[in-house]
């Protein structure tokens, strides 16, 4: 746990990075931020229009209420995808221009198409649950429906490790030995450390803790295991991810999701009553609009939660590695490699940042060192 009342020292970003790096990161992120904002505005506008015109597409269905609901939901998502294409393309072009991604335009198109297919399947499952339950118990669907979504989220977290492609066992004995030691210190069972080869797709460094119970694992992107990252820095990454497992962040994430999903389902059931409730497929476009608006409103709160979890994992990593210097080096490299702005504007921090900023992470490393030095 992060000690109560921990005060982060005030570090100037100009003392950490050359001005050219800072201006480059700021320029890169500015584009990404505004692209996101515009895309989000378009999404809400499109879904708002669709909430009005969507019910007309009922005539394009020969299916019953559930099938028709699925069609309307898929068409809504399809329209959103279509109108977001220019923004996605712009972001992809920007990433290619800054060598953040190595994927080709063809790969981007194919991946986008497959991604939309997966979204279609997921939304069909969601509609099957919502409209199916609403057929039986009417406007009370939100209670078992919300519970079903939480169960699905837990199931998804459980099986996610098997859905991530291209995983290989870690073949770095020194790093594996460190991981074993950290697991022992944290009282964790043997958690596999896997490496995902992303070399052909991106240069950005990343790692993730995934799975629940017996499926738990840490996945390191292959970019983390390459130069310029040193073994000490890689140890910080592994310790950070094991910290997520030790603090049960994935279970807590599902619990947080429940706190959002069940009231969210209740609100959607209330909002869609004017269209006859979710038992009526014509209410699906309005339900989609409610979902998008509520998700956007919940974004700042969700980011607060994930930032807190990430900070906690950072603290665990510092405690395990006892190496604030390399932790600081790692966070600096993230800025260089991913063109991450170490201190983004406040609105962007609230809306977009799921992790503490680079500057905050460095400040935490220094706070940890100061705390250690002051402790006899």
């Amino acid at each position, binding site marked *: 746990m992060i000690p109560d009342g921990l005060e982060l020292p005030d570090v100037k970003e100009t003392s950490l990075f050359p001005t050219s790096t800072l201006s480059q990161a700021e320029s890169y992120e500015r584009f990404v931020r505004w692209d996101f904002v515009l895309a989000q505005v378009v999404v809400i506008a499109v879904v708002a229009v669709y909430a009005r015109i969507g019910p007309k*597409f009922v*005539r*394009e*269905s*020969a*299916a*019953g209420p*559930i*099938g*028709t609901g*699925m*069609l309307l939901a*898929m*068409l809504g998502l*399809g*329209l959103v995808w*279509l109108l977001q294409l220019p923004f996605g393309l712009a972001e992809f072009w920007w990433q290619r221009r800054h060598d953040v991604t190595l994927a080709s335009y063809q790969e981007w198109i194919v991946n986008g*198409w497959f991604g*939309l*297919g997966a979204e*279609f*399947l997921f939304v*069909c499952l969601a509609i099957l649950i919502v409209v199916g339950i609403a057929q039986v118990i009417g406007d009370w669907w939100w209670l078992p429906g919300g519970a079903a979504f939480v169960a699905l989220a837990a199931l998804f977290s459980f099986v996610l490790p098997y859905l991530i492609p291209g995983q290989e066992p870690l073949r770095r004995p020194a790093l594996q030995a460190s991981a074993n030691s950290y697991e022992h210190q944290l009282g964790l069972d043997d958690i596999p450390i896997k490496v995902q080869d992303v070399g052909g797709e991106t240069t950005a460094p990343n790692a993730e803790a995934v799975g629940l119970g017996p499926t738990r694992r840490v996945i390191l992107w292959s970019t983390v295991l390459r130069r310029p990252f040193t073994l000490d820095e890689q140890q910080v990454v592994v310790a950070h991810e094991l910290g997520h497992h030790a603090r049960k962040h994935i279970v807590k994430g599902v619990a947080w999701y429940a706190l959002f999903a069940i009231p969210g389902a209740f609100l959607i059931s209330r909002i869609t009553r004017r269209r006859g409730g979710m038992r009526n497929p014509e209410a699906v476009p309005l339900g989609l609009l409610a979902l998008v608006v509520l998700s956007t409103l919940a974004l700042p709160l969700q980011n607060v939660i994930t930032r807190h979890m990430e900070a906690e994992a950072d603290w665990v990593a510092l405690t395990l590695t006892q190496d604030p210097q390399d932790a600081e080096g790692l966070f600096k490299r993230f800025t260089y490699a991913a063109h991450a702005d170490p201190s983004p504007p406040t609105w962007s921090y609230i809306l977009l940042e799921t992790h503490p900023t680079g500057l905050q992470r460095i400040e935490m490393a220094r706070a940890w060192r100061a705390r250690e030095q002051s402790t006899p």
Partner: protein
Amino acid sequence: MVFEPPPIEPSSLEPADQPPDPNRHPIRVVVTDDLHRSRLTVGFRLLLSIPLWIWLVIWSIGVFFAAIVNWFLTLIKGRSPLSLHDFFASYIRFTTHLHAYFFFAADPYPTFTGKPGYPVDVEIDPPERQNRWKTLFRIVLVIPAAAIAGALVGAPGGGGNSSSYDDQSSGTSSWESGATFVSGLFVLSVLVWFACLARGRAPHGMRDLFAYGLRYAAQTWGYLFLLTDRYPNSDPTEPPADIPEEPRPVRLAVNDDLRRSRLTVFFRLLLFLVHLFWLVLWGIAVFFASIANWFATLAIGRSPRLLHRFIAAYVQYIVHVYAYVFLIANPFPGFVGAPGTYPIEVEIDGPERQHRLKTLARLFLALPAFLISGTLNAVLFFVAFFGWFVGLFLGRMPLGFRNVGAWALRYGAETNAYLFLLTDVYPYSGPWEFAPPRPVPPPPEFEPEPEPAFT
């Protein structure tokens, strides 16, 4: 509308001295074949056709150069010169005769000149004025039709000849020269070969299917060689197919209005995903139900009603879903295959008594039907591919595309129904749904009885 063989009034069958239909296609196939086949010539047909193929190759060299000249002249004058028109017309007739002979769609040995009068013959109208833009872009415009014709019959002029006017070093010639021999109808002709040898007759439905393929191919090559600027018509109404003698247990019902929603057309493949998922899940249950049905039908001589209903719903569902994904219908289908809910569907009769020997060997017996279904599905694929663009731009599906697709779906459903033991009536490959109604014989004239003589 459900396709039954409806009777019509004799008066409407009058040949009439009416002028020809102005909408009729300038290139037509006329079938006068009586289905009789000589077993001797059938046995050696491949060898017997060799001189014809060689002649076709030689002729095709001339056709290639003449086609270039004809293109320039048609572009300048706005119509094809009569001499060249006749030259191509003879060539297309000869190609059609040769293919009909080779595919067992006709019996007599064809002439080398494409002389009219063959049992599967081509009628070609005299040259007419053509749109110059269509002439200019003919080689591009012909691509969709050529893809469908290629899937059915092979490359232009029958494929076997095409190597002659290709650059031999390009590597494409061997592909094209083999096109006839890998085309759908060639694969099916192997089946017909066995049938003709065994029975001395060609199967009726298959002959109609071949006649359709040859007609479409003739129209395509006629379009390519600038005999007309009318696009090939994929509607299986021409040449008129025959209606099977026996009633069919699986019948097509079409209530589609050809309108297509552009948005759902654009996303059609992705919208199909959820149905694909359900199709696979339900298919697993149907697999086990079919095994149970096989044992039950073998034991009691008919499919149990419950299993019949369960499997028939699945067959119906496949038709709905395929009609949707292949753009043969517009609305998003339901998930239970309920009859009477979809614009393109099949009606399946209830359980009937089935021959036990046919039941025993059903898997083996169904194989030829699957080959035929595969050929029609290849056409269905091209129809969907090109229909996607048409649907997106026009918001409509062409009638011909819709009908040929519906025919393919009906045949697929019949094949599935046969495989899953819903019926023991073999699938009928001809497009009988689109045949003209069978004439009703006029009632016998009333002859008044002679009045008794009063004595």
